[in-house]
């Protein structure tokens, strides 16, 4: 496979995943923190953490059960007169399925760090804001969000630094001949080159190293930018 399609597939999957996946735990943690019923908040937090413990094989199995040709979604569509679609053979379905399932699996787990940061917010600031006349939403914007901003900055730098570090396992499990054009990533290509068929390990190592160099460059750019525009950075 050519370099640029591999690069494009990896980059697009990571960027879209990052754009959707990075703010999601922040929003969830702010919502859970703002809930009046702390009991309900804890119950929801536990429910949201559940998917993190599902193994990738089981997760892809679930996706097959739901989105396979004879899966739940197709059965419902067929019941209402729709046509059955083989989502796993469709190139256009690979990225949405991959990204949404990843986010579903990890948003609760990723929210833990923000929930922990929110638990340290000075209650006095909230009370001062109440007396100042701030609504619940205004308190989230003016008290909670600034309080977790250093944590958001650190997480942002780390996420950008690992942007191209997508794993090969899930993509391989979801890969079919139909979606190979978009599901072949740098990681899956390295795996195939290095460990399957006639192994070409030096070539695979070189590609892997190239990927790591990109990650390091991204990390440095993110850290420098954060240092310049906010007061938070990793070093």
């Amino acid at each position, binding site marked *: 496979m050519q370099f640029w399609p591999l690069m494009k597939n990896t980059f697009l999957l990571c960027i879209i995943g990052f754009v959707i996946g990075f703010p999601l735990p922040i929003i969830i943690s702010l919502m859970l923190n703002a809930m009046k019923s702390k009991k309900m908040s804890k119950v929801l937090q536990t429910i949201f953490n559940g998917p993190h413990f599902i193994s990738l094989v089981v997760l892809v199995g679930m996706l097959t059960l739901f989105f396979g040709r004879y899966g739940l979604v197709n059965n419902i569509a067929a019941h209402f007169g729709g046509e059955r679609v083989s989502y796993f053979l469709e190139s256009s379905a690979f990225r949405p399925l991959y990204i949404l399932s990843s986010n579903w699996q990890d948003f609760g787990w990723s929210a833990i760090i923000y929930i922990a940061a929110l638990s340290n917010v*000075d209650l*006095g*600031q909230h*009370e*001062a*804001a*109440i*007396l*100042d*006349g*701030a609504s619940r939403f*205004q308190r989230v914007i*003016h*008290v909670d969000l*600034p*309080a977790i*901003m250093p944590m958001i900055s650190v997480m942002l730098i780390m996420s950008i630094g690992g942007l191209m570090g997508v794993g090969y396992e899930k993509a391989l499990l979801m890969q079919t001949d139909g979606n190979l054009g978009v599901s072949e990533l740098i990681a899956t290509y390295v795996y195939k080159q290095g460990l399957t068929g006639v192994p070409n390990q030096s070539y695979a190592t070189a590609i892997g190293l190239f990927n790591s160099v990109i990650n390091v460059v991204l990390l440095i750019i993110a850290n420098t930018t954060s240092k310049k525009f906010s007061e938070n950075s990793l070093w």
Partner: protein
Amino acid sequence: MASLTLKDIKKVYPNSEEKKSKKKKKGDEPEKQKANLQITEEGVVAVQQFSLDIADKEFIVLVGPSGCGKSTTLRMIAGLEEISSGELYIGDRLVNDVAPKDRDIAMVFQSYALYPHMTVYDNMAFSLKLKKTPKAEIDKKVREAAEILDITQYLDRKPKALSGGQRQRVAIGRAIVREPKVLLMDEPLSNLDAKLRNQMRAEIIKLRQKINTTFIYVTHDQTEAMTLGDRIVIMRDGFIQQIGTPQEVFNHPINLFVAGFIGTPQMNFFENCALTVDGGKYSVEVLGKKIALTDGQNKALAAKGQKACSVTLGIRPVHMQLDEGGFTGKIDVSEMMGSELHLHMNVQGNDVVAVIPTAGLDVSAHSIGKSVNFSFNPALAHLFGADGKNLL
């Protein structure tokens, strides 16, 4: 500016359903006392029977030990805590169910509670912005308040770039820009060091002269209470013990608790003193010496029809003097405070403290282990009955 009326205010923190069911299963007694908290079937009672009229522009100080309910009372006035029962009026308006922002009050917190991402200017302007006050008016009010508090030069700084005292000024500034009818202060000086605390105390006294508003100030520091308040409300275990001017609570403490709480060093107490009456003249026996009470004290006791009984005699350390003909004590600790000497003595097994002016005193003659003779003026003594109430 506004007067405040608190009528029989009560605050109960309800038990959780889980605790209630546990209690039912165990068949606990309906009421019990845990540390200084009263626990009933309803829950933990933090404040009760709190009735107080606060005049317009008055400076009221709520003082008491930790857990006495003073901060809870303040938070009920602010609307941050629900009032379990009773009525709270600000001016003529019943505000029990009015949202905090609509009560026309402002509060200064112990932790300053400044928004760390905003500059001093923005912190002070925040409430006015939320009220959609015109920009020019916000600017005028913020700069006026900054001028009063001498923080104009810090308006562009963020709170983390300020010292504790400066932050506290900003917190006060944020409260006064709103021109509240009532300004609430919850231990605003507790986070400051002793020197800064004294400085800020003086600043608050000055501030009071500059802004016309009613102040309610919570502290556990009796020096703050005595120096700042027009009237002091002394609380214990959720109940008001005494309301009065600083002089009243110092000179005429209503009970043993108030007598012991107000005044530094604490009042000396001599327990189990025999109060006797002979021909209308009362006398009290302290550490084996019979002391005749003054005419005024005789009249007060006679008016109450006081009979001979066992009493606790209280005398403030500042009302004691060195006197060769008085009681003899052995000095355990001698604290040189500059203008005065604090002598901690053991007198027949009782711990007694005396504050002696150092002017003309040979301080070296009053070191640890030495004996000293002292006496006190009976006119300045307090007598407390078995129920702890002041008999005079």
